[in-house]
């Protein structure tokens, strides 16, 4: 054990005293891991937004065969009928207005909801700045999701306009439902008026059911109810709705996985190349160590130690930078009015750093094998 740590220390000394070579390699690894972190963050943010969990109790009622919020038009009074359906705990009619219906990195989504109903519909929502009182005072008041406010640098008292609507910020909210944190809540009549869709018309209904197991049966009951009306509906669990509506976005994000794979391969090749060069440049040094009584596995341990440290250093640097960057930028991807906040979590950071360490070790196996099988006598003569 003692010997092992001494070897690692020796590997460390080799690294820090070949400063230029090590820095360049670490920089390369860091770039790769930065990309890896971005891709993994995307993937995980998406997984969190689409993977159904046992705690999901929300349904979205949308106009059948419509995908863009401006195309889904439903009469507001459907809410009363939905509320009477068995298993429904609460319903809220929502008018949605987005600045951009296509895929975008900076999408702004307004959700118009009847005053007073939001609290009842989602008691989990917490006001972290400003107040609800301020919200009820003004017609054009908005409650911003935390992520959205951060991305735009908005705080209570500020005004902003988007999609032809000007609102004033009354407060900031935090919700356990990811979508809430990316939107601006305004009053329903205000938004109906501002978007010129007319009073009484909403985009969707959000429905909370009493029991998790009843999501499907309630959804069927709702669609059945309106099947023969002028406005047939399509009701889905919130996350499934997201997955279907933002399908293009999801496909795009799925593709980025290949970028992550590319980053991983590049990092491995880079470390392997750096170590192969180092091993070649040190044939004599290694032959001397062997002469001093270092067994082949000690030489291999030195190489793998260097690989692991390069990987770990590059990982800490690249993943750390990536996480800080994404957190600071708080990108939100939007598509058809659905938003996806790209936020790194502890899992991405731990996984990224461990992956970098592992890649460094893997990349050093072949160079290590080369180093330990070099002929001593021939290399001393060279």
């Amino acid at each position, binding site marked *: 054990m*003692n*010997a092992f740590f*001494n*070897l690692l220390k*020796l590997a460390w*000394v*080799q690294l820090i*005293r*070949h400063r230029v070579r090590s820095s360049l390699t670490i920089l390369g690894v860091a770039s790769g891991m930065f990309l890896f972190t971005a891709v993994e963050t995307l993937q995980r943010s998406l997984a969190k937004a689409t993977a159904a969990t046992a705690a999901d109790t929300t349904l979205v009622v949308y106009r059948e065969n419509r995908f863009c919020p401006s195309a889904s038009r439903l009469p507001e009074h459907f809410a009363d009928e939905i509320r009477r359906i068995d298993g429904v705990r609460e319903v809220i009619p929502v008018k949605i207005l987005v600045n951009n219906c296509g895929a975008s990195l900076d999408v702004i989504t307004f959700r118009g909801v009847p005053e007073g109903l939001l609290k009842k519909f989602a008691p989990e929502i917490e006001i972290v700045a400003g107040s609800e009182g301020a919200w009820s005072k003004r017609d054009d008041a908005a409650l911003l999701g935390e992520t959205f406010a951060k991305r735009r640098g908005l705080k209570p008292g500020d005004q902003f306009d988007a999609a032809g609507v000007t609102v004033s910020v009354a407060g900031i909210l935090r919700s356990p439902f990811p979508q809430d944190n990316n939107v601006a809540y305004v009053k329903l009549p205000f938004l109906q008026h501002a978007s010129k869709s007319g009073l009484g018309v909403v985009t969707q209904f959000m429905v909370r059911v009493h029991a998790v197991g009843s999501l499907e049966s309630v959804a069927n009951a709702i669609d059945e109810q309106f099947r023969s009306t002028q406005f047939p509906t399509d009701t889905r669990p919130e996350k499934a709705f997201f997955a279907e509506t933002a399908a293009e976005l999801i496909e795009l994000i799925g593709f980025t996985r290949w970028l992550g794979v590319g980053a991983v391969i590049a990092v491995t090749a880079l470390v392997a190349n750096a170590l192969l060069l180092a091993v070649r440049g040190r044939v*004599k*040094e290694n032959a*001397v*160590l*062997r*002469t*001093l*009584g*270092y*067994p*082949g596995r*000690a030489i291999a341990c030195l190489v793998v130690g260097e690989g692991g440290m390069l990987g770990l250093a590059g990982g800490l640097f690249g993943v750390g930078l990536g996480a800080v960057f994404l957190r600071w930028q708080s990108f939100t991807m939007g598509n058809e009015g659905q938003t996806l906040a790209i936020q790194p979590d502890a899992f991405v950071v731990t996984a990224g750093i461990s992956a970098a360490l592992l890649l460094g070790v893997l990349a050093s196996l072949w160079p290590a094998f080369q180093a330990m099988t070099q002929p*001593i*006598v021939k290399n*001393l*003569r060279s």
Partner: protein
Amino acid sequence: MNETMIHCQAVSKSYKKGNTLVTPLESLDLEVPAGEFLALMGPSGSGKTTLLNLLSGIDSPSSGKLVIHGTELSGLSRRDLTAWRARNVGYIFQLYHLIPVLTAFENVELPLLLSPLSKRDRHARVVAALDLVSLTDRMHHTPSELSGGQEQRVAIARALVADPPLLVADEPTGDLDRESANRILELLQQLARRHGKTIVMVTHDARAAAAADRTLHLEKGVLLENP
């Protein structure tokens, strides 16, 4: 004190070079008592380095018997031979072969890193070895900051630090000026006489050979007392 350190009996070594077989050493006999300082001379290509490599266990004979410090080397596995080497032989090279990025102290410490010694014990032994070659004041210098003679003394300290009974030196003064060379030779003499090390030194220089207790000439694979 008259035990045998090196016992070579009918030792041969050949290398394949393309299609031809080069045999630098053929049926060589050699007996070196412990504590002797032996000089080995001979023309270039006569197999001197090859012999040192066999004696130090970094190469193995093609045939013959090689017993060093009571151990029959051909009976050892690669792994055991490596461990044996760490305990029994110190190798001194003509071009010192210090690791350039390590300080004198760190270079000398290398042979001890795999031993179970504590950090403090290692430190004490490295300092003692550097003291023996009078370089304690240079221990934090890297090889590029030392003269050739100093580098060779560091290399000698490195060969000594694990306290092996046998030192082999391949033209240790070949690259040094007269004065530095003399200093190295005195040092080797002192190691044999005062510390009981057995030393086999290859040299091209008759004056260097004169520092040894005995000189042997290697010619065409055969050892001669007087050429």
